[in-house]
């Protein structure tokens, strides 16, 4: 039986980072990602998606453990200081392990 457990990384951050973030994800070994528009509130104030400068995106990536670690390190080193960004991970099971 193949190993069907993967990591799900969820990133919520400023919409302005979407393009470069997705490029970085692919470079770090993610085979795909999902982006949705998001709004909410945190220690950077209300991010209400009312217009481009205050909108957030939520990026989800399902990947193997080592890719997840690379992504987390990359984001922590490059974005955590200056951008509104949160990241959390969880364990998931996938139906088609060869896809991720």
């Amino acid at each position, binding site marked *: 039986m193949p190993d069907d457990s993967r990591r799900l990384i969820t990133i919520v951050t400023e919409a*302005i980072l979407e393009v470069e973030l997705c490029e970085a994800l692919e470079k770090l070994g993610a085979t795909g990602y999902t982006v949705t528009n998001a709004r909410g509130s945190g220690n950077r*104030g209300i991010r209400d*998606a*009312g*217009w*481009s*400068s205050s909108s957030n995106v939520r990026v989800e990536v399902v990947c193997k453990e080592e890719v997840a670690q690379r992504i987390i390190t990359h984001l922590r080193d490059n974005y955590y*200081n*200056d*951008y509104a960004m949160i990241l959390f991970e969880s364990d998931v099971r996938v139906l088609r392990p060869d896809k991720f």
Partner: protein
Amino acid sequence: MDPVIWFFVLGLVAGLAKSDLRLPPAIYDLLSTLLLITIGLKGGVELARSDVAAVLPQAAGVLAIGFVLPLLVFPVLRAIGRFGRADAASLAAHYGSVSVATFAVGVSFLVERGVSYDSQLPLFLVLLEVPAIVVGILLARGLRSGQRWGKLLHEIFLGKSIVLLVGGLGIGWAAGSEGIAPLEPLFFDLFKGVLALFLLEMGLIAASQAQVLRDKGLAVVLFGILAPVPLAAAGAAAGWLMGLSVGGTTLLAVLTGSASYIAAPAAMRIAVPEANPSLSLTASLGVTFPFNIFAGIPFYYWIATALHQWGG
């Protein structure tokens, strides 16, 4: 007062009162697209009729102004405002660059009074948008290697406002007034209505800056009100020296006195992430934009008129 201004007030009041009024982001995008194309088309049509040889040296002068303005603002912010290097550079980029919405209100102001303006002003709008952003990034970063200039220049030059303005100018130029005639109902006849709706949303957005304004306090308010006047006066003087009409001089003053709130924030967020984005955005959108549309534009018109009467 120009009735479109009241829509800004309506948005501002509704926003401050926490009304659920809200234009969908897609509508806001459509309205700004329409405004940018209209300004470009109008300029292109007029530009096709005018003498290119006379416009070129003026265009070079305006480009130079774009590079100089942030260099004037930056040391003042550092010395008097005591702002950090990144924040001062970011504010300098915002105030050196221009606001299309303020320009549109300026055009509406002149149309209301039956004052004509020179055809090259929309071209000047394009020319003034970019240089200050580049200078702002250099002020914050220096010529240090590692800055991703390729990506940044792509961001700056292929930003929506530049593409639409230059595209509109080109199409207007190529088609001429006869060719544009079938498009007039959408772009020209609806201009005021589109501007009114756009300002309604701007009022809502400005209201959302009120909280930040309360936190940042006096320095931002003072800068937002005091900066545009000398900047606009410099623009008016330049316009008068270039031999622009009263309307043209007014609009150049409106341009130099306005502060960017779309192109500059996006570029500075990527290039100078350590600068506080809400500081510049609140100053330009929450203070300078309302100041300009209420008091600034009539005042700049008065300056332009005085210059032309006094200087002949």
